[in-house]
């Protein structure tokens, strides 16, 4: 239903005491010495970057070196994990798992989120409650039942088992987030599309979907990163060397009595790079997405 649009009148701006004090605070902030800003940020950055430097150092310095600078550099650890330790295969499997989880989670969350945002149905509130509560169930608790279900479905040792399990565990939060984004899109826009001859699906596709880009990127990237890093399902459902993923591969670099720190660091960098790249490209949408959808349930 389309209602008459009543433009709201902007309230007259009054310079109150609090407004003036805010202004003073802004000026004080602008006039603050640069070091007061950069010193805390620098300290924070140092704490954040030192562990990464340490990983980088171990990854590129030769075995047995105790040098604190990465020189001379060697690629032997990367070559070792990539070829001898099958990281090329693990990487490929992780990409397949991550992308498939991203797609399935996004599509199903979009459909479910739309239903939650636009329809009222009996049991909606309990359903939302169950969705929220499902976040408190640890995956380890469901390992045996999931294992048996996947065994019945002949999905053990197939990447599909991990994709399905990851999607199922990602969906509740993703649906809640997406429904929040959809609620932010005025219903009247869809109604206008219907008046112009669109059906519900077409109206959704041309009017609502383009406005959901930040939300879809937030949900999709969250699903990808979670699937990329998740260890437990891949360890339990995949018992073939050629099906295992990066987190399992990383764990095999630590044996019961010895650990190859160079290989472990190189493996860690290989595991981290895709996640860093994903975040570098999507961070602006990610921040918009989470801030606009997360708190409106």
């Amino acid at each position, binding site marked *: 239903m389309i209602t008459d649009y009543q433009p709201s009148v902007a309230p007259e701006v009054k310079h109150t005491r609090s407004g003036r004090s805010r202004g003073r605070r802004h000026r004080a902030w602008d006039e603050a010495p640069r070091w007061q800003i950069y010193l805390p940020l620098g300290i924070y950055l140092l704490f954040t970057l030192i562990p990464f430097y340490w990983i980088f150092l171990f990854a590129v310095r030769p075995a*047995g070196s105790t040098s604190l600078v990465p020189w001379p550099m060697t690629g032997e650890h990367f070559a070792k994990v990539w070829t001898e330790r099958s990281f090329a295969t693990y990487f490929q499997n992780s990409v397949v798992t991550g992308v498939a989880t991203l797609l399935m989670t996004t599509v199903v969350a979009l459909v479910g989120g739309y239903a939650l945002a636009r329809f009222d149905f009996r049991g909606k509130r309990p359903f939302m409650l169950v969705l929220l509560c499902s976040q408190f169930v640890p995956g380890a608790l469901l390992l*045996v039942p999931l294992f*048996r279900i996947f065994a019945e479905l002949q999905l053990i040792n197939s990447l599909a088992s991990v994709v399905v399990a990851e999607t199922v565990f990602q969906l509740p939060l993703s649906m809640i987030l997406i429904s929040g984004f959809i609620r932010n899109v005025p219903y009247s826009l869809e109604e206008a599309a219907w008046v112009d001859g669109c059906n519900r699906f077409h109206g959704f596709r041309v009017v609502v979907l383009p406005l959901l880009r930040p939300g879809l990127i937030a949900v999709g990237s969250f699903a990808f990163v979670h699937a990329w890093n998740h260890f437990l399902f891949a360890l339990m459902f995949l*018992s073939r060397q050629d099906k295992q993923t990066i987190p399992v591969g990383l764990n095999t670099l*630590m044996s019961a009595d010895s650990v190859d720190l160079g290989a472990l660091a190189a493996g860690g960098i290989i595991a981290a790079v895709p996640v860093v790249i994903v975040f570098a490209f999507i961070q602006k949408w990610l921040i918009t997405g989470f801030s606009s959808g997360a708190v409106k349930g």
Partner: protein
Amino acid sequence: MSSNPRRRRLAAALALTTALALTAAACGDDGTSGDKGKEGSGKGEITFWDNNGGVRTEVWKEIIADFEKKNPDIKVNYVGIPAESVQSKYDTAIQGGGLPDVGGVGAAMLAAIAAQNALEPLDDRLAKSPLKDKLSTAMVDSVRAAGGGEQMFTLPTSANNGTLWYRTDLFEAAGLDEPSTWTKFYAAAEKLTDKGKNHFGYTIRGGEGSIAQALDAAYGQSGITEFWNGDKTTVNDPKNVAALEKYVGLFKKVTPSADLNNDFKKMVAQWDSGEIGMLSHNLGSYQDHLKALEGKFRGIPNPTLDDGTRVQVSNPVDGIGIFKSSKNKTAAWKFVEFALSHESNSKWNEAAGAIPSNLEAAGDGWVQSAEATKLAAAALNDGTIKIVQLPYYLPDWNSLSKADNEPNFQKVLLGKMSAKDFLDTLAGQLDEAQAEWKKQQ
């Protein structure tokens, strides 16, 4: 949303049916739980889970290639399982199905897996095998004891031994003798410490895995050789209490304060890359030391008392077993026999720096040239070490010796709990677990 009551009922019925079908699938028996398996034809595929996957993958793949060359009608699928997760992987597979035909099972988790009736007893097969009388009796006894005492569920592949690694370059520079006795050990730890220069005499294990090392130090100094005195444990014997008090007194005095959270990874990395005189760890880290400190270190069995008595706690013996659910036990046994043959067992243990279970392999040239392994093997086999057998057969041993008591040991290091209270608590738990175990026998 559909307002048609028929369609709504249909949807509800469909949802209910799906839920019930999934529940039935989850609760149904997939045939592996309690499955007795089959002997099989001795041909075809078998799956092998390596309980220490990754670091030993290359040598296992080599052994598997040799086996497949000799047995062209058997294919072995190798799966490397991370050592830290292998227990949960086995537990899930026992409950949910999907166990391998053959698997590596260390003595520390053997009791828990055997208690779930998942492993095939191997006594009869061994009695008819060429391996009979070729495996170390001490190791065979150890895996038999860990499995409950009556049957043998795994064949031992290797043993490890507590080793005191020390930096020969630092000892020479300080004019110190090798730390062969506890008296020399404490003196060296003190002399090598110069906190201002970040030099320390010793690194103590305060984090994960600390209990076994603490017990090794306590029994090693007290000279007590039995873990049980009747139905009561000897861990809180006054001699052990005094020994542990002296040992934890090293913390921060001659060790880095960060040792509070040391697991073996941090401890070994710290020793390999720093200026620390001594490290207590088993033979398993030999290759790591070799890479980092070649020519600058030695590994000797733990120190003796001043009268020459050497007491150490037992290290878990590694082994491989056949799972009851295997559909091809004949082929699985062929693989186990091959893995424990002279050549394969020697190859595997040389890569791991461990003591071979195959007696012929234990006499090979590489054992003589790998000094730490040679000394450990000699000390174990010539009877100069008195081994305190830790109760790996207790299903609760893993939790008692790890998560249940490691935080308390950290309190002892920090001076928030006395060594006596710590050992008394541990003793109470052990006595209870032993009584429970006896009741179930």
